[in-house]
């Protein structure tokens, strides 16, 4: 590489207005807005080079820094005689020696329209925590791809994390276009690849651009090397994209109270940063969790009272009434307040070397509220490379999972997707005081999903004794049309006549309600049976005799349900009707449909049935009537 154009360019092309009319220049710059973004990519994607380039092109590099950069580039640079922009941004001494970035670093540059804060985050797998940290305050993410390598595992990981943390503006920067001869087909193929992946994880929109951080193509202006690209340059895009605080201003008013301002008996104000919405004197507000209402009388600042304040401003509010309000409370629009709850489902990103301990008490900080929280065993962990859900007993450093958690008192919250301030939290170890995790609330759990076992005074045994019976599950299994529902119905009638308390669960009353969200794939069949098993178990806890009539084709799920029940309370009843016989009966005409291909995944036709190997009872419907079968079953249950 003999090209050294970067060295020869003028170092400092300042705005002519600065020299001509500084007052006018200052006026223009008073009205700048601010955008925070992150850059994601590995050492090799040219991330540091791109940031160095942005600083350089926006004149943020001074002569003395440039001199140091030039001498450093020759000493330790990786670009031969050319300027190694990466050296501008690689900070700590240890990192410089290793030649890699290992933490989150914040950089600043500005154009006439905007000030930018760049969170530079590393691309190594073990540093998920740093990327999540950098992304938490970002309005936008720049995902860097090396044009020679295309969409890699790490590209998917970065995109997933950016999406997880709620960044809506994603830029796919296909870098090092100079090394692929500015070939449009290379760019197009990468964009196509990425589109497929992005759609699969729920990213609905992104902006792709071909760039070279090293050569400066499409960074500040359209490059002559890519005449086939008509989109904006990176800077143009960054200058015009909408920032989060603008969208937050359109939401209902919420302000967590940080501090109560009480200089004397005549003044009482509530200080905080407005999370969403706007507020004016005269607005009716509600203080949560107490629910008390009042009216805003003043918005107090050192520069005089304000007529209105919006999301992103730190203010002090005064009320018309002397109502209780203290740190941790949330002031909200009176007729549209957020809820309070103490049990939630959340995504958790674990950030400490010591793994998460389900059941341990951690501090949870959300807004200005700090409470004690315990987390349950994760429902699953996400493999950030493949987005697969994996079973997990805990979460280790850099692991991301979904779990239920409960707090020792109610907290005012909103789902993270609606409100970052009232939905994002950190967990703090009570001994070391380290920040061990970040989390995002999904929703509160209803009472029925309470995560704690409630110790009840009316016990399982008491329920059963009250009904004067021994609880049981009669689990009927067999092909469609085998006679399960007919026999089950007869069994229930006979038991009812004997004053037994029973309940019949069958496909019809479960599939239309509890399980109406499930289809007939293998996974859905498994979930269908799991839920029926859980319901049957609760009913036995209530002392009932439960009769179930489901095909339940898989052995492992029937065994799973067996394991849920108390010993001796599970009776597997195989209604054994040969396929040919069931198909000949075809009471509902389903076999005909399945044979014609109209009905997919039909057990016995194109979906397997695994008969029980050792059932409590086997009923051969070819040698007995339904009534005889029902009598035999009742006799087995109640000798």
């Amino acid at each position: 590489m003999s090209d050294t154009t970067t060295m020869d360019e003028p170092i400092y092309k300042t705005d002519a207005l600065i020299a001509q009319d500084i007052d006018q220049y200052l006026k223009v710059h008073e009205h700048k807005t601010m955008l925070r973004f992150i850059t994601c990519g590995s050492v090799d994607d040219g991330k540091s080079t791109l940031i160095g380039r942005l600083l350089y092109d926006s004149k943020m590099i001074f002569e003395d820094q440039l001199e140091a950069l030039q001498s450093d580039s020759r000493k330790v640079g990786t670009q031969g005689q050319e300027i190694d922009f990466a050296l501008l941004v690689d900070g700590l001494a240890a990192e410089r020696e290793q030649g890699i970035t290992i933490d989150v670093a914040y950089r600043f540059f500005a154009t006439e329209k905007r000030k930018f804060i760049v969170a530079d985050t590393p691309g190594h797998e073990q540093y998920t925590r740093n990327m999540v940290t950098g992304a938490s305050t970002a309005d936008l993410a720049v995902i860097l791809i090396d044009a020679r390598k295309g969409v890699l595992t790490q590209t998917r990981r970065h995109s997933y994390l950016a999406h997880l943390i709620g960044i809506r503006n994603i830029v796919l920067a296909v870098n090092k276009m100079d090394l692929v001869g500015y070939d449009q087909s290379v760019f197009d193929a990468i964009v196509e690849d990425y589109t497929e992946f992005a759609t699969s994880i729920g990213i609905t929109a992104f902006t792709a651009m071909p760039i070279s951080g090293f050569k400066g193509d499409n960074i500040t202006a359209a490059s002559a090397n890519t005449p086939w690209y008509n989109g904006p340059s990176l800077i143009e895009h960054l200058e015009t994209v909408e920032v989060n605080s603008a969208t937050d201003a359109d939401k209902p008013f919420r302000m967590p109270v940080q501090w109560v301002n009480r200089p004397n008996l005549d003044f009482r104000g509530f200080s905080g940063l407005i999370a969403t919405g706007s507020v004016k004197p005269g607005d009716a507000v509600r203080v949560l969790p107490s629910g008390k209402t009042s009216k805003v009388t003043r918005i107090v600042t050192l520069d005089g009272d304000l007529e209105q304040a919006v999301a992103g401003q730190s203010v002090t509010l005064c009320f018309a009434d002397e109502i209780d309000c203290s740190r941790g409370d949330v002031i909200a629009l009176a007729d549209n307040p957020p809820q309070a709850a103490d049990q939630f489902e959340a995504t958790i990103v674990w950030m400490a070397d010591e793994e998460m301990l389900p059941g341990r008490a951690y501090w949870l900080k959300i807004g200005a509220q700090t409470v004690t929280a315990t987390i349950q065993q994760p429902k699953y962990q996400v493999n950030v490379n493949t987005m697969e859900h994996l079973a997990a007993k805990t979460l280790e450093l850099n692991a991301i999972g979904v779990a239920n958690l409960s707090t020792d008192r109610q907290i005012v919250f909103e789902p993270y997707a609606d409100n970052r301030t009232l939905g994002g939290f950190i967990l703090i170890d009570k001994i070391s005081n380290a920040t061990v995790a970040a989390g995002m609330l999904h929703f509160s759990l209803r009472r029925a999903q309470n995560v704690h076992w409630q110790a009840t005074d009316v016990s399982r045994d008491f329920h059963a004794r009250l009904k004067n019976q021994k609880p049981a599950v009669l689990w009927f299994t067999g092909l469609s049309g085998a006679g399960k529902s007919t026999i089950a119905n007869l069994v229930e009638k006979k038991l009812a006549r004997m004053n037994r308390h029973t309940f019949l669960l069958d496909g019809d009353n479960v599939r239309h309600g509890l399980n109406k969200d499930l289809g007939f794939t293998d996974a859905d069949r498994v979930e269908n049976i799991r839920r029926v098993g859980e319901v049957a178990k609760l009913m036995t806890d209530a002392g009932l005799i439960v009769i179930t009539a489901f095909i339940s084709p898989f052995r492992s799920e029937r065994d799973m349900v067996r394991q849920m029940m108390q010993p001796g309370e599970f009776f597997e009843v195989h209604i054994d009707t040969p396929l040919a016989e069931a198909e000949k009966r075809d009471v509902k005409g389903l076999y005909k449909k399945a044979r014609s291909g109209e009905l997919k995944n039909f057990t016995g036709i194109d979906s397997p049935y695994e008969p029980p190997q050792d059932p409590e009872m086997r009923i051969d419907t070819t040698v007995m009537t339904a009534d005889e079968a029902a009598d035999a079953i009742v006799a087995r249950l109640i000798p």
Partner: protein
Amino acid sequence: MLDTKTLTHLERLEAESIHILREVVSEAEKPVMLYSVGKDSAVMLHLARKAFYPSPPPFPLLHVDTTWKFRAMYELRDRMARESGMELLVYQNPEAKERGINPFDHGPLHTDMWKTEGLKQALNLYGFDAAFGGARRDEEKSRAKERIFSFRTASHGWDPKNQRPELWNLYNARKNKGESIRVFPISNWTELDIWQYIHLNDVPIVPLYFAQPRPTVERDGMLLMVDDDRFPLQPGEEPVMRSIRFRTLGCYPLTGAVESEAQTLPEVIQETLLTTTSERQGRAIDKDAGGAGMEKKKQEGYF
């Protein structure tokens, strides 16, 4: 002023800094503001007055003095303490005082003893568990990676590899006994932001930031101001009146001036924007120990 829902960059920076100041006051037991009298300190103090208005900021100002600051700095310091209604604590390391440590005879020992040691002693003496500082991330490379809440061990050490992650605007201010936090409310401000804010809010600053004819001598490529008669002139050396101003302020024998005619704030900003050298270039401290001078100083406990 709020016809538009989009705040300007200075409005957002101000709101963020005020949020940080209020969090510390709510969560720390005994906070203090380290006040160096420079322009960054001036903005930080102004933000504190805004954050708690109409109350005065509920913490004292601490000036870790070296006895070698510019006279104009001492004047503004005392005036600002009066105007803000805050208590002013001035600490001078007694050992440095006794040994007569000065920048002319003792080189780096001057900064170590007066500033680094002096700060540790003052924090220990008063038992402050949180100290606000006016450092900015754009000042130099190792600052770029520092958190807004920076934890120090009981011996005031800083471990750059073991910092707490900071997410959203949630700050974890919990600590064990003996540990303390340095908090940097203006981390995300740049030099230009500071100047613009001073301009828009009429924040009082030391007049040394504006150009005036002042007595100077040139040494090792630096233009030094002869601020009092402690300045030892070398044989044949004569102070020369030059129109100068300062981009940063510290101990006068260690702070380089620039020749300038900028007498108003817009003119200063104009020069700043047109200049081609970085702000800290006038300071000797960054040049110790190669490129990693400041990082090494911080691990030792320098602010």
